């Protein structure tokens, strides 16, 4: 197992390198002079002389590969540089904005699981029933509805009409009151995917021979479903949950903007608009790392839940 994890971690390095090269290239090829954009204020475009000075200082006049290598050398030593717009350390900024996103993602994930797992099981067990039809319709709606629309709808209903929750904002360090609406918005689409997966995977499990056998032994249906079928049906669902979680952690720029939530999605979009490339590269690298780490964790979960993979990995 340890060897397996180590191998996976070593494999991360070329992936991260590739991510940084692609991000840098995209940044370099995108139109517009970053110095010009960075210095543009509410008064309008900046003084051309100031732009030249900035280009000189930031080393924008060097060839692209020199700029990239300069960044890479520092990054290898753990220094992701400083933001061009705010002057703060990129690593600090990324971590600072990741905390709100992490909080929001955890609550969204919990909400999505609380909805999707029971809904998926119920739909599978009562296949073809009204519950199934309604549940899957909701799931379809969940994936199809754009999140900003759902966000506004929830605000109008729960914050404006019923006055139960605050409209938006980060409150006192992202308290639960302020977190519920954005978390439900994000959780809804995640729940939709998971419940469909849960349903189909459960249906498949219920058709297996061991289920027939379990029923033949006279086990109560509850036990057949929850003890025998669910355990096997959960495997593919875990992959989906893992993917959902990484999607949530990448921070939805839309939801974060609507709810004025200071997360990493907001940080990324702002840095892209401002061409703050140390920040963009820092975010990309961090998110890529996170994505890979979560995938690794999903694999490890698999290893423990499914005994078969244990034998295959030859450990």
């Amino acid at each position, binding site marked *: 197992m340890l060897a397996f994890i180590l191998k996976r971690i070593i494999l991360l390095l070329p992936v991260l390198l590739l991510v940084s090269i692609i991000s840098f290239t995209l940044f370099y090829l995108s*139109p*517009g002079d970053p110095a010009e954009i960075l210095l543009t204020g509410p008064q309008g475009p900046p003084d051309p002389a100031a732009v030249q000075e900035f280009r000189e200082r930031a080393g924008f006049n060097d060839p692209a590969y020199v700029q990239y290598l300069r960044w890479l050398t520092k990054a290898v030593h753990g220094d992701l540089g400083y933001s061009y717009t705010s002057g703060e350390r990129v690593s600090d900024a990324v971590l600072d904005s990741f905390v709100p996103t992490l909080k929001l993602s955890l609550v969204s994930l919990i909400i999505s699981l609380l909805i999707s797992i029971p809904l998926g099981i119920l739909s599978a067990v009562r296949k073809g029933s009204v519950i199934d039809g309604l549940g899957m319709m909701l799931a379809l709606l969940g994936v199809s509805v754009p999140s900003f629309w759902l966000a506004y709808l929830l605000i109008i209903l729960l914050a*404006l009409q019923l006055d139960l929750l605050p409209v*938006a904002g980060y409150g006192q360090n992202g308290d639960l009151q302020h977190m519920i609406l954005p978390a439900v918005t994000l959780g809804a689409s995640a729940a939709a995917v998971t419940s469909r997966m849960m349903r189909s995977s459960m249906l498949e499990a219920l058709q297996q021979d061991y289920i027939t056998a379990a029923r033949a032994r006279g086990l109560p249906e509850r036990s057949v479903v929850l003890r025998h079928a669910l355990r096997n049906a959960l495997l593919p669902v875990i992959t989906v949950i893992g993917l959902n979680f990484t999607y949530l952690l990448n921070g939805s720029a839309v939801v974060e903007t609507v709810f*004025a939530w*200071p997360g990493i999605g907001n940080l990324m979009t702002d840095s892209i608009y401002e061409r703050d490339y140390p920040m963009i590269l820092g975010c990309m690298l961090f998110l890529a790392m996170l994505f890979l780490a979560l995938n690794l964790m999903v694999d490890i979960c698999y290893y423990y839940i499914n005994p078969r993979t244990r034998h295959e990995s030859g450990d």
Partner: protein
Amino acid sequence: MLIIRNCTAVMAISLMILILSSPVLAASGNSGKVLNGDLIFGPDENLDPAYKYTGWYMHEAGIYETLFGLDENMNIVPKLATGFDQVSDTQYEIHLRPNVLFHDGTPLDAKAVVFSLERVMDSSNPRHGEFSFIDSVSAVDDNTVSIKTKEPYSPAIASLIDPLVSIVKPDVNLNTTPVGTGPFKFDSYEKGVKLVVKKNDRYWGDKAKLDGANLFFVSDSMTRAMQLEGGDVDIARGLPQTEVQNIKGKSNLEVLSKETMRENLIYINMRKAPFDNLSVRLALNYAIDRQEIVDTALEGVGGVAAVGVFSSQNPWSANKELKAYEFDQSRAKALLKDAGIADTDGDGWLDYAGKPFSITIKTYTSRAENKPSAEIVAAQLEKIGIKTNVEILETGALTTDLTNGNYDLALYSWSTGTTGDPDYFFSKHFLSTGAEAKKTGYSNPDVDKWLEKARTTFDQKERMKYYTKVQEQVLADSPEIFLFYLNELVGVNKKVKGYVLYPSSEINFLTPELSLGD
């Protein structure tokens, strides 16, 4: 079964932790006299007012003050200065207000003023160019500062209004601990979330009526409107035009609106045929129905159709005698015909030099009104037979295109002068060496001469004579098409009293007069 029970347990525990770790009840601490307000833009991590445009936001929050300021009618008023003597064409002696204390209790003196100005003039400041007219700053005595300019420069005093030259306490870390002299003092800041200020009990002027304020930075305009409606905030800037009617309909809310110094205009690429031809530029002016843009793109509430380059909100420098180009399509067509642009192949579209005459309007979207306005202009040009496209670019890409002359028309939003002095905008746009004039290719020796003279003339009436001529000439030469002056729309809960909307609203928000009823 075990897994499921575990999963449920883990979920329940994490939910519990989240609930416990969030001081839910503490969130509703909006007691009595603390104003909650939504702003659009906020400072970066760095809170130093000399850093880019951070000073504007800190000035909005009432933390810092400048030597001179503008009142709500755009008149220059003394703030931390009580007045000035002009010693010569190139030297001013500024008298400081006595008995002013910084937020930490130390007195304001000439040394602090010299420090505050010199650090902006330093070449490491990206905006130092705006103050390169200053030769030197020195303290004459504790309460007098002398400013020497390199050349006679009449906007000198007005330029001290820009919060870039906020007067700061030397020897403190201004990035994290702002110490100013304003009616409010800094309490805390969460980047991208909020700035919290408290009343300054030792303020030199009328003390603030509020105990403090929470200023939230919310980039989504719909969210700002809904927060106002839901009572999360008492005041919200930058309402979406579509929400104005809805908010006006609520009994506890109102919408305040005022023409600002911000203007939307179209650059014409005079370096490119046929736009080098005056008739073509005039035709474009006649073909555009400015009122229709205001009524549709701005929902009738977001702005005022433009006449000349300056709105009448510009205190002394707007030429109020100017006459707007009337909307007159047949005149536009006739002018185009004079310039050799007519429908020669009978397909209903105008042709120029044997090819269909088509125009691309380039613009950017970080100002919400740009795209709809450009689309309406395009539709209006199509009505007189010019094939017109709108192309959306990012600001940086657009500026590059403009610098390289790679455009026909470009729709921009500009502030015509935060300090109230017309020199800033005019020299950039219409002096042939100005950065924006280079983009349109505009050069008129008369205008150059008038602008140079106005800059070195100190009598305001004399200066106005030059600026009157400049505005007439620019409207006639039309290197830029002036579309509309933007309105600031502020949603206010009726319990907020004493809120004054400034034309230079981008730097003014919290004032001592603001209070909360109920």
